[in-house]
């Protein structure tokens, strides 16, 4: 004689909806453990089994994972900031001040975004440093190293475009200085090698396209905002997907050389 609770549970577990969401039992078997990972769209990014060395934090420092965590934090806090921030010259600075002074948890969100951004640049560097030290850039992982270099560049671009958005003196002059480098682009910059010969002027070269004008102004703010919130994160997300997928395809997370037994 089953109790009323057990009866209800049995009934619920036989419904179509329940079986659609929970597709396997939770008995602790090898098969179920594998299914728990494989049947979940988020968890299936993890390998079903990992070797013992992969749990050794001293080898990888977990820097790639920490970088990804920071990216998630930046995405979430960034979207929250977008509810208050308007990327127009008349409003941008005031909206930033509004966020910092009058919005509930505004300073927390903005500071999390700011510090996570700084931290992400550091962790990306440390991640690369670790990959270099452990020789994990070598075959068969060369391709993933190259994707990683693109991701490093994207991280720096994200950092740079986000730096303009407070629209204060520091932002405007930092971006003025930074984008002046684009003048020296070969062929496409008005002061770069072969630039003037190809007809590049201050009002038609690559810097002009980047800024939307000949100086850092309202069009630059809007352009950098779109790059910062849509374009760059989208590309970064795609490349990160490939980056993580490649780890698995190249034989899982890299570890000490088992053959030498020196670890």
């Amino acid at each position, binding site marked *: 004689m089953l109790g009323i609770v057990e009866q209800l549970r049995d009934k619920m577990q036989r419904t179509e909806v329940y079986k659609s969401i929970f597709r396997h039992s939770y008995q602790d078997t090898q098969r179920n453990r594998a299914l728990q990972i494989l049947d979940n769209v988020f968890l299936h990014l993890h390998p079903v089994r990992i070797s013992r060395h992969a749990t050794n934090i001293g080898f990888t420092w977990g820097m790639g994972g920490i970088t990804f965590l920071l990216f998630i934090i930046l995405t979430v806090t960034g979207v929250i900031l977008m509810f208050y921030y308007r990327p127009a010259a008349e409003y941008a600075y005031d909206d930033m001040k509004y966020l910092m002074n009058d919005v509930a948890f505004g300073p927390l969100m903005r500071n999390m975004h700011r510090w996570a951004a700084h931290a992400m640049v550091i962790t990306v560097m440390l991640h690369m440093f670790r990959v270099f030290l452990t020789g994990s850039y070598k075959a068969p992982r060369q391709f993933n190293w190259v994707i990683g270099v693109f991701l490093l560049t994207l991280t720096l671009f994200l950092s740079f475009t986000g730096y303009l958005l407070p629209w204060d003196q520091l932002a405007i*002059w930092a971006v*003025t*200085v930074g984008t*002046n480098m684009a003048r020296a682009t070969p062929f496409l910059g008005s002061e770069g090698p072969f630039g003037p010969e190809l007809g590049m002027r201050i*009002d*038609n070269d690559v810097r*002009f*396209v980047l800024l*939307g*004008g*000949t*100086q850092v*102004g*309202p*069009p630059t703010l809007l352009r950098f905002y779109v790059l910062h919130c849509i374009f760059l994160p989208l590309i970064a997300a795609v490349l990160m997907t490939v980056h993580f997928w490649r780890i698995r395809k190249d034989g899982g997370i890299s570890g000490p050389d088992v053959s030498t037994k020196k670890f």
Partner: protein
Amino acid sequence: MSRKNFLNVAGWFAFFSFLATAVVGAIRLMVPRVLYEAPSAFKAGYPEDYIVGKVNENYKDEYRVWIVREIDGFYALAAICTHLGCTPRWLSLEKMFKCPCHGSGYHKDGVNFEGPTPRPLERLKITLADDGQLLVDRNIKFLYEKQEWSKPDAYLNYG
């Protein structure tokens, strides 16, 4: 060429033509046709209103230009630091331009004397307009290191 082959080639050609056109169009779209920036040339008032020996800062905010009145004429300096492009400040007591970003310093004539900047400030074309006002064209630059400061429009002779 067989019919199947032709359709294959034509199909891919159409696809890539569309793609190339779309890319070119997207790039062209990013180049603005209209700029909401100050015009490159501007009139800067009558020469008599300038005080001999003074650096005039009236046109700095809008045009980033200093106009300097000397005993025998005028010259216009671009208020753009030649180090990395910040706006220097005119310190009237010390008689020098100082950049707040990295500390570059320039004499009143625009020649650099300290800080990281590699070259003097740029002078701009300065002439008299038909109505007798000063006319500065920011598009025409005169560089000291190319010996261009001795060119006619780099300095406006005016008694």
